[in-house]
């Protein structure tokens, strides 16, 4: 089912990698220019009327964010994930809130958590869940959660810890050598 869909799509769109996960779930990769026409096509001609979610992954090693638009075709009970690779240093993306109003919420979340901007998306610059956030967007992989926690939340007095190897040396062979 998904393969024939892909065969139909690939004549019209310049699609990247296609991965069929299950009979009713597949992923395609698309360029930024073709995202909108592809989504419209899927929605209006192929029956994928529902936007399930819009999410991102930070592939910091490859300097890219991956956006995934997951669409659902209720009538035929199938899903398609449309993937789009965005360079990490150019994180402006076209809003699709006019295709699915719920997209505005996802886009607002992505703006806050990844710093991916969707100009024109309603209320996109308002705080979403991180009220008063001052650091870099926390889902970016370079965000150091532990450092943030240490700096933001002071330690209670009375903490101490031990490094296992150092502690074992003190206990078992303090002079550097044991006699085993």
């Amino acid at each position, binding site marked *: 089912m998904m393969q024939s869909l892909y065969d139909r799509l690939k004549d019209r769109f310049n699609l990247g990698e296609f991965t069929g996960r299950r009979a009713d779930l597949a992923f395609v990769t698309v360029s930024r220019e073709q995202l909108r026409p592809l989504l419209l096509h899927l929605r209006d001609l192929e029956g994928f009327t529902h936007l399930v979610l819009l999410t991102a992954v930070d592939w910091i090693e490859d300097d890219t964010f991956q956006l995934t638009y997951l669409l659902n075709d209720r009538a035929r009970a199938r899903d398609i994930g449309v993937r789009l690779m965005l360079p990490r240093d150019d994180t402006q993306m076209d809003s699709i809130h006019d295709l699915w109003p719920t997209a505005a919420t996802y886009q607002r979340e992505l703006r806050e958590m990844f710093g991916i901007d969707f100009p024109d998306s309603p209320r996109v610059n308002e705080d979403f869940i991180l009220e008063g956030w001052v650091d870099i967007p926390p889902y970016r992989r370079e965000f150091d959660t532990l450092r943030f926690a240490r700096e933001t939340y002071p330690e209670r007095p009375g903490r101490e*810890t031990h*490094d296992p*190897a150092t*502690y*074992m040396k003190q206990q*078992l062979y303090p002079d550097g*050598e044991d006699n085993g």
Partner: protein
Amino acid sequence: MSVRDVLSPFAAWKHLFRDPVSIKDPFNREASERYRGFHQNDIEKCIGCGTCEAICQNGAIDMLPVSGVDGVQTRPGDSGLRPRIDYGRCCWCALCVDVCMTGSLSMSNAYKWVEADPDKFRYIPGVDKKHWDDYEHGYRRPEGHRLNAPERIEMPELEPGERIDSFAEIVGGYSVEQARLEADRCVTCGICVATCPTHMPIPEYISAVRDGDYEAGLKLLYDSNPFSQICGKICTRRCETTCAASHEGDPIAIRWLKRHITEQVPFERYRAIIGEPAAATGHSVAIVGAGPAGMTTAFDLARLGHKVHVYEAQSHAGGMTRYGIPEYRLPFDTIQREIDLIVSMGVEMHYNTRIGADISMAQLQQDHDAVVLSIGLWLGRSTRVPGSDHRNVYKAVDLLRRIRDGEQLQAPKSMVVIGGGNVAMDIARSMARLQQQQHGQIAITLTALEDKSHFLADPVEIKESIEEQVTILDSRGPQECMVDDQDNLLGLRTWRVHSIFDENGRFAPSYDDGDEMVHEGEWVVEAIGQMSDVAILGDELTEKLDWNRGRIQVDEDGRTSESWLWSAGDMVRGPDVVHAVADGHRTARSIHAHLSALDKQENA
């Protein structure tokens, strides 16, 4: 309620006796089964590796000593530390549970706890007892859900068919990519370091593999072990037995990663990385025996600026690594590179020089400030069963030495090996190769006193011996080397072993003489242990020294009862390369302290 209910109120009566949907006592409701509540820790299972602390992104975990509680104790494989959790910081993400190396850590579904003192919300699960310690429900790491790979990256090796007719090295070594994947499995907890006899900085050099910084890795290796290339191939790797990863998966291939570092750095770079020796001190030390213990002592003392002379009876250095371990495990050039490096520190070698024959201990004492005796265990022990003095009954160490010395041994068509340790496997596998080369078929039976689960040999050796068609029989006790009327050796007669030790733990095997077997063999080879050839010391010195059950008595630092003489290595510690290296370091340190004290006396 619909309009009809209001109009006919009796219709609603049918609901009167049903249980209410609302909860009577919302304050004592159990959380859902997989709720992530306060932690539980099985502290007998936990090894105090601190991986939970390392992963916690809230800095909520400390590792604290709890020795004495419920039998927890700092010992090889267990730091004696246990995690303490600060619930002022914990966000209940359960990363610590997901990463836990032993599976000891989990979360109960207890979520309610009222307390006036905020410091109470910091406790050591399993140690500070809580009523939820035994809760059945809560978050456990789901089956198959792992943050780190449980399986070791496989080492490329020659297949049995490819290796059986030659002495070519079996193990191929990791590629850079394989080594990095394997290094990535290490959580750098450092639990293993205490188990390594010479306490190599294992997590640090594994990190160097991960970072691809091989020169830094090599420096770490040689600062702790001048036999790193050799140990990278044949170390008994005690460290791996205590690796945190071994609790729920394969231990990290620590030995192979060490080997990988030594293979990645061009040998010409070694010397520059290790560095120059210190300025000459004017002291001179003699070392008898160029095995791992003697050469490690030599390396350390030479680096400290002392003049070192090594006296070696054989034509090559390396001791048992050169003359005892077969080439398919440890090629000559590996050993030679190791020796060259040590010699390059200014060590002077005297080969083919036998104590007693070519030079006396008294002479060494006279010419040097200190003398080290590290002559190893070169005399094979005999079972002394009837017939064991037959000319075709051999000692494994003698045969191994002859093979490694390049002698073309004529292999017998069939052969029996007595012993279940690594030396027994070494001789069986070496002879299997010779049989294959000379006769095109293998007929070797290996009989061991121990049962399979108590074999002394490395399990890999046993597996590979079987692959190489050695027949291994466990729990067989030798009774007689059978000889016919024409004085031909026929084989070995054995009885089944009942028990090896008596109730006091003394070696006293008992047999079932009803279960007798005769194993055919033109040769019988004894591989049941070795002794030291201390006769070379001469009567006078032997008289003067203190002895302990046939071994020279030494103090903690390897010093004998004679103040100028130290003894190190297999002859003191029993056979093992890395123990010999550790012993060499210890001896060198003791001698250096002694020489420094001499300097002070002179200056005073």
